């Protein structure tokens, strides 16, 4: 029975992939571009699930790492006349290295203090690195020619979408493999109790830096592929709130759920356009203000979710659906909630369960 369930799940996944691959056939130019953008953000969010969801290190610099990849790939193409794919590869490698540098503070601190440090690092990127004109192309940004592959018409967004889909699936496979494998178990051990993990022989330094490196490399990949999609990369694409929105959205959806990354990316990409289409809203507030509504809504949703559905929207809704299914199901099957039914949605909020106790109590025990 378990096997058939496994088979069903695989078939559903396969069907989903086929449907996703065929999706552009049903879309016009505008929507093909939009779903491509969604994939770019989904890739970036997958990196954030690794570092924040699995390893439990809050990162407020993820959009900056994404921007780093985009700008670096653009600069390598423009200044060093490299092939786009080679530039992307180098940007990913550079992102990996950068990750182990910006991850260094995590070796001495964690939690709240680490979040502040990542915010300060993000600030240095925004103020110091991105304005460098040889790196980012300055205020006007940089044009990036749509990359080519012989035999494929990548100039069409419908075809470029397929490249992004392959990249997304590869990164998803990587993230799932990490999560289910040894590294993922070590990450979770570090998330739950760092001193415990260290005591049982986990080399904290290596694994923490590995987490930051993987997350940064994935973010850089998303940034570079996004630059190829947009055919431009500008500072305006990476406003300082972007990292906060990304973390907020991922937390809302459930920090370690793979579906959450997809829904989160859909929200990030579609909400500005969706809001602009609400009748009268643009007239009432003006176009600029409507765009301002996105962080407003994300922030409000974040607070409501934290109070009402603390495990994240996807896991909470999933649990609710399963409960109601069990209630409505045949009498024999009621309550027969199979363990491990949905490993991809295993619950992990941002927060180590062990830190549930009040910090003050630690002193009392001794």
């Amino acid at each position, binding site marked *: 029975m378990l096997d058939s369930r496994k088979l069903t799940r695989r078939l559903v996944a396969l069907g989903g992939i086929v449907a996703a691959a065929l999706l552009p056939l049903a879309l016009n130019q505008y929507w093909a571009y939009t779903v491509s953008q969604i994939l770019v953000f989904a890739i970036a969010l997958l990196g954030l699930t690794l570092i924040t969801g699995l390893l439990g290190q809050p990162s407020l610099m993820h959009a900056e790492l994404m921007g780093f990849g985009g700008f670096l790939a653009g600069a390598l193409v423009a200044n060093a006349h490299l092939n786009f794919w080679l530039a992307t590869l180098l940007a990913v490698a550079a992102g990996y290295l950068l990750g182990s540098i910006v991850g260094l503070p995590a070796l001495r601190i964690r939690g709240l203090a680490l979040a*502040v440090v990542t915010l300060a690092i993000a600030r240095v990127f925004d103020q110091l690195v991105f304005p460098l004109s040889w790196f980012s192309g300055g205020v006007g940004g940089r044009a990036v020619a749509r990359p080519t592959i012989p035999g494929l018409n990548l100039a069409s967004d419908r075809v470029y979408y397929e490249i992004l889909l392959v990249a997304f699936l590869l990164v998803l496979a990587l993230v799932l493999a990490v999560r289910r494998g040894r590294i993922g178990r070590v990450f979770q051990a570090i998330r739950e109790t760092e001193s415990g993990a260290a005591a049982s022989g986990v080399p904290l330094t290596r694994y923490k830096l590995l987490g930051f490196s993987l997350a940064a490399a994935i973010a850089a990949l998303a940034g570079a592929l996004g630059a190829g999609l947009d055919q431009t990369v500008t500072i305006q694409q990476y406003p300082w709130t972007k990292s906060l929105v990304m973390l907020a959205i991922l937390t809302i959806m459930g920090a370690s759920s793979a579906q959450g990354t997809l829904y989160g990316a859909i929200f990030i990409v579609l909400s500005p356009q969706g809001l602009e289409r609400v009748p009268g809203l643009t007239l009432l507030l003006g176009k600029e203000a409507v765009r301002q509504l996105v962080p407003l809504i994300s*922030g409000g949703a*974040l607070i409501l979710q934290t109070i009402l559905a603390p495990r994240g929207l996807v896991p909470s809704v999933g649990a609710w659906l399963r409960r109601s299914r069990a209630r409505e199901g045949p009498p024999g099957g009621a309550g027969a909630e199979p363990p491990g039914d949905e490993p991809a949605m295993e619950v992990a909020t941002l927060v180590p369960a062990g*830190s549930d106790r009040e910090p003050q109590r630690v002193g009392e025990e001794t």
Partner: protein
Amino acid sequence: MDLGFYLSLSIVGVVNGAMYALGAMGIVLIYKTTRVLNFAFGAIGMISTFVAYQIANLWHINVVVATLGAVVSGALLGLAIERFTIRPLEGKPPLVKVVVTLGWLLILTSLVGIVWGASAYHLPIKLVPEGTVRFPGVAIDYAELIDLVVAVMLTVGLAVFFKATRLGIAMRAVADDVATARILGIRVNRVNAAAWAMGSVLAAIAGVLLSQKGKVPLDTYSLTLIVIFSFAAALYGGLVNLPKAFGAAIVLGVLQAVTPSLPGIKDLHIMGLPDLLALGVILFALLMPRSALVQAVAKEGA
């Protein structure tokens, strides 16, 4: 080498540092009492400053009323955030509460953007008339003088508050040991609310003072993000040590004022140097032996 030049730069730095120190004190006050790291701190100061701007520059009522307006709106906002979005999360891990403050950061900045315009230019508030006071050797602007006076008054006031008032002592008790404080009859919720209100008032005052004369542009992100400097100082004190945070804030202010004019650095025109220095202070706090920051994080357990 013009020593007088560096001296006057340092004075500007001390004044700015005193403003960061006000922010750092607010952050530490809230964190120490309620164990919530308030990422919305800068945004609270920013929206309160916009309230002052509305009163002083758009309604043309005087600046005293405007400053009061900022203080009151800061306090009310702090109270509301604590009461409606922090208190319901009692017993939840600290990071969950931080996520809520991130939500407020997003809400407040976009709210100000919608009401006052995100990219529009806003004329800075003029708290005091133009002019300088001459001391032997240096001249200080009225604006900087009032910054300094307010910062000193608030710092001394806070010290007295923690030493000599019932609420201040209760706050220290709650910071020390919530459970025991509660047993002793301290109303922890009220103390927490007071800490949020007071911290947010500090944010509002720092915001109004920093934005006068346009030293920090009055827009949605400059004031919101200047909080990084206060955070850096607060981190240096391990988020709990007020004197250390205060000292780090002053040092950071002076470094930011002096470094860009140092020979060798002057010609590089490094953008974002203030932020780099703030990160430097944080890294110094991380790497220093017996660092208050590392010890404080280690003490949090888990």
